[in-house]
């Protein structure tokens, strides 16, 4: 087909929009890799930060991020998968409850992250933690009712719930109906069909959802500002009630509260690069697993 002048104009303008976005993305990644890569060294990754937070490494932040993400996954993923199973395998599409659950999931995905922070503080720390304290201890010093890695993880588990639910449900729906029918026709119960036939076939898709949720949770900072992230901790968290350092929070604190931002620049770029590599490699892994499981289902 022949393009006219106006075609070139529309194609050019819209293409320009794409170029602008790709350029911005390119500059972003380029700057971070360019300034961040020289900072990365074994010491940077494995040592504790110095008292000024600029010298030394970022090991406690890496450790805290991974620890928190692990807890978050343990708490959130089973609930997310169960919800997806309910929506795709048990609830009829017209059921009012399923509709309500779907609306709730969609809205949960849209709740601002800072509101999750308020929720974590108001519900987990003050209500649940404070409740445990007043039940178990006479002392007024809070044991559970204070910011900790446990409450931060639980808050993020709820924040990432929609990601797990939506991707898992999608994965369950790609399992062909014929397989389910065959299983049921052989006399398997509904539940046997779900956990022996449907779940194994949707494994790849579910894993994708879990990884995407982990990647999202690892990068969120706003919810954990009041829920357990620490500015500077000389020791690693060993207890669920400890506070923890976090890569994203470290970036925020260092970039906005450091007395000498210019001196902090290399450390900052290095930390951002580590965080970016962490989330990107998770995303990449998710993309690869998803592509593979789709290819496997097609055969």
């Amino acid at each position, binding site marked *: *087909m022949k393009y*006219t002048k*106006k*075609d070139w104009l*529309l*194609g050019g*303008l819209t293409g320009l*929009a794409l170029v*602008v*976005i*790709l350029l911005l*993305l390119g500059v*972003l990644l380029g*700057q971070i890799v360019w300034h961040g890569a020289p900072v990365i060294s074994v010491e940077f990754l494995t040592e504790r930060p110095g008292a000024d937070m600029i010298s030394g490494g970022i090991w406690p932040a890496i450790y805290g991020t991974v620890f928190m993400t692990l807890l978050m996954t343990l708490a959130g993923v089973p609930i997310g998968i*169960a*919800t997806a*199973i309910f*929506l795709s395998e048990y609830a*009829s599409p017209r059921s009012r409850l399923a509709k309500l659950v779907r*609306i*709730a*999931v969609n*809205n*949960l995905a*849209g*709740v*601002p*992250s*800072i*509101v999750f*922070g*308020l*929720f974590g503080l*108001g519900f987990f720390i*003050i209500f649940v933690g404070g409740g445990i304290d007043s039940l178990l201890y006479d002392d007024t010093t809070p044991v559970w009712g204070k910011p900790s890695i446990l409450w931060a993880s639980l808050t993020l588990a709820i924040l990432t*719930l929609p990601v797990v639910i939506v991707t898992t449900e999608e994965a369950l729906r790609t399992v062909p109906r014929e397989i*389910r*029918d065959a299983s*049921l*026709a052989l*006399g398997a*119960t509904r*539940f*046997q069909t779900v956990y022996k036939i449907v779940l194994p076939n949707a494994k790849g898709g579910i894993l994708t959802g879990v990884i995407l949720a982990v990647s*999202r949770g690892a*990068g969120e*900072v*706003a919810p954990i*500002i*009041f829920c357990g992230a620490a500015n500077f901790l000389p020791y690693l968290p060993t207890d669920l009630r400890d506070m923890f350092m976090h890569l*994203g929070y470290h*970036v925020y604190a260092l*970039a*906005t509260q450091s007395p000498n931002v210019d001196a902090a*620049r290399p450390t900052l770029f290095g930390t*951002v690069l580590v965080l*970016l590599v962490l989330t*990107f490699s998770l*995303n990449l892994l998710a*993309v690869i697993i998803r592509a593979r499981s789709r290819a496997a289902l097609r055969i």
Partner: protein
Amino acid sequence: MVEGPDGAKAVEAGRRVAFGPRQSRSKLASSFRTPLWHRVAEKTIALLALTAIAAIALIFVFIAREAVPMFWESDFAQEVELQDLFFAKQWHGYDEPVYIWQPVGEPSKYNVIPLFVGSLKVTLLAMLLSVPLGIGCAIFTAMYAPRRFREIVKPIIELLAGIPSVVLGFFALMVIASWAQATFGFHFRLNAIVAAIGLALTIVPVIFTISEDALQAVPSTLTEAALALGARKYQVALRVVLPAAIPGIAAGVVLGFGRAIGETMIVLMASGNAAIMELFDFTTSVRTITATIAAELGEVAQGDPHWRILFLLGVMLFVVTFVLNLVGDLIIQRLHQRVTASS
């Protein structure tokens, strides 16, 4: 051919006919009964599925719980008058009634209007940037780009969506702010424009993905008919495909708006955070609702008037984004119904 869930029902019914009702106590029947732990597991699944509903309800209840005592607490009434939250007040030492957010001032001034103005200013500016960019990218990938190119571009823009917002905030603070100041000579290094550029980077993927899906979902019969009638490609794009995809694009814009107004880290790091009541000058620094909560809550005592007001801001934010999400989802659902009905 029986369908999935109905098929299961049929099988269940068949089993009941063959082996008697479930409640039968005979030994034969009991061995065919669904094992107890299956039923327990199924009940657990149904129960866990309610978590999402419970979470939404709990979020609202427990944020409101920290905010509403402001309406009856005497401590609160002593320090703040409720009407001062929203209306201009003639403070001592000022020439005229003003809107001021100054919690550390003496006396503390808690007028939330400057924060609303700040949030709206940054959000609108970010939308002004990201709507044309997002829709432009979507039109190009859906209409002009070759198929293989599209398959590369989509994941790349989704990659942009996967970047943590603290990284985008850092990028806006370190790179965009310096570049913008050098290029435009802003008086304030961190201002509404810098924050909006950073925000646009998070909203463009939202608008792009939903718009692109909507453009792709327009039935090819429509475009083919238009092309057969001799329409040019740009005419097909602008007069056939785009109007047909408008509801989807609108949903993308609404959801993008919700995302922008609730975004915290980028505005916290790159907007300068001065609560200035300035409606039209975009080169001044702004303080948004989200950034105010994030920056101030850590330093406030629990139950303090300041604490209650910050939670009130959270409640408002929650309600606004909730409504925006409902509207966006409703549009998308309508669109789905229309597309499935027409094909």
